[in-house]
């Protein structure tokens, strides 16, 4: 194991984050705060409780995920796309590093940042709406798994993309809608049966439901199923990346 390399990539990536701190932490925090002001503090008190949870608190887990998913994908994809674009990737490709080490460095750094972002948003949300966390250990575990999975997905996107637009399209046109429709602002139980069934094809619905369970202990789907889906997502991304590196696809000529 080339630990020096893992460390070098990890620190390099964190340093890049530090440089773009405002863009990558402050802006999702601000937009999440806006949601909480509007839906949580202003409209929320007029709405009924969902599953025994006040509406403002109910939407917090989904909002955290909304920010974590989009930031994970866009940050991790940018992290690997940028060196491809500028050509500095030659150095990583010619270095004595394995796929595992490259992933630990790049995805590890991106996931660290996502986790930090999630926790910052969590703390910020507490300023707007009162809530408590029923299963804090599971909450952290879910947040980590989800961060890593979506950073892997972002990494894949960064390898696949051949233009900056594609990097933005996926978070904007795919993740945000899926997160909204995945029950961030409502419970799947509130939907007509047909739409509820359709929603179950959206993997993010499981993540939101499982993550919310760690907060309030209420879930529409069995939390073990949500966990299994999260793990499956992680495994799928990992497999795809290993295959890409093995074949050298898009990285080596």
């Amino acid at each position, binding site marked *: 194991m*080339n630990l*020096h390399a893992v460390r*070098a990539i990890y620190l*390099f990536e964190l340093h890049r984050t530090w440089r773009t701190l405002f863009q990558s932490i402050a802006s999702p925090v601000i937009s999440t705060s806006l949601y909480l002001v509007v839906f949580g503090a202003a409209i929320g008190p007029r709405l009924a409780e969902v599953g025994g949870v006040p509406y403002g608190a109910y939407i917090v887990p989904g909002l955290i995920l909304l920010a974590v998913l989009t930031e994970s994908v866009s940050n991790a994809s940018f992290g690997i796309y940028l060196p491809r674009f500028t050509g500095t990737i030659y150095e990583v490709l*010619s*270095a*004595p590093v*394995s796929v595992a080490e490259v992933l630990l460095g790049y995805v590890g750094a991106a996931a660290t940042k996502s986790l930090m972002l999630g926790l910052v948003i969590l703390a910020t949300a507490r300023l707007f709406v009162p809530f408590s966390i029923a299963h804090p250990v599971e909450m952290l575990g879910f947040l980590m798994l989800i961060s890593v999975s979506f950073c892997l997905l972002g990494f894949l996107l960064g390898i696949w993309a051949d233009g900056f637009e594609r990097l933005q399209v996926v978070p904007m046109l795919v993740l945000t809608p899926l997160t909204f429709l995945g029950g961030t602002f409502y419970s799947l139980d509130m939907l007509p049966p047909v739409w509820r069934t359709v929603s179950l094809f959206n993997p993010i619905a499981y993540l939101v439901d499982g993550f919310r369970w760690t907060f309030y202990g209420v879930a529409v789907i069995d939390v073990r199923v949500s966990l299994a889906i999260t793990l499956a997502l992680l495994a799928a991304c990992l497999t795809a990346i290993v295959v890409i590196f093995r074949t050298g696809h898009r990285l080596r*000529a």
Partner: protein
Amino acid sequence: MDSPPPILSITGLTKTYASGQTALAGVDLSIRRGEIFALLGPNGAGKTTLIGAVCGLVRPSAGRIVADGHDVERDFRAARSRIGLVPQELATDMFETVWATVNFSRGLFGRRADSGHVERVLRELSLWEKKDAVISSLSGGMKRRVLIAKALAHEPTILFLDEPTAGVDVELRRDMWAMVRRLRGQGVTIILTTHYIEEAEEMADRIGIINRGRLVLVEEKEALMARFGRTRLSINLKAPLVALPPGWGDVELSADGTTLSVVQAGAGAGEPDIAALFRRVAAAGLEIAGVTTTRSSLEDIFVELVGTPAEDLP
């Protein structure tokens, strides 16, 4: 005679890109430990592809590469940790400092942090004063030095320089030559590609000429010069000559009749035609106005070699 094992051995290396372009068509090459090897060839000859295959940037279609005893595919960690690469394209991080990026390279190649070594490398490349500068603020020549520093950060024993002096001013080029010699003094094997033939002539121990994906020739520089080098003697006459005296068939007479010249192949073996010409000119009672000799450069040799179809070459 027992020759020591090569530090780099390439056998049957072939590369056909996805586009169908065959960039390397069966290259065999052995690089000796500690030498400076210059790879010359026209644009698109396959120089960068060859280097890419050794360094892991290009997947060979066929062939085997062994670097310092390690197969570059099966044993890529050991092989790559010994190799440093300065790419042809200037690709650098923009927002990092020189110090950070060079230390990053060292770690990436699996070496423990060693600020003493990094400092030495930066000083040798006259980059020490710029160590805290952000790379985007450096000039092109400085950026190239940064790339060299990055390639040397992990103390490689084999260094590839892909056109290190392209777009570099004369002074920096001299500096770079001096640096390459110093590195060789430290036991580093250097393989460089260049379009500047004087560079190969000045620096290389051996020269390889590649054209259309094939190594046309690999030879000691001295031997190459001796084999293909020519010396041309031209004698300017005070009075023009109407025709060559009988039996002077090996001598050329210029159209205006004032210049006699002979071309001597190789480097000074046998009875020089040049001395013979002087005797004949004196015997014929011709008065000499001036004499010039020109030695053909590697450039002439190069043009001669790649100008002819590969199959006609020696």
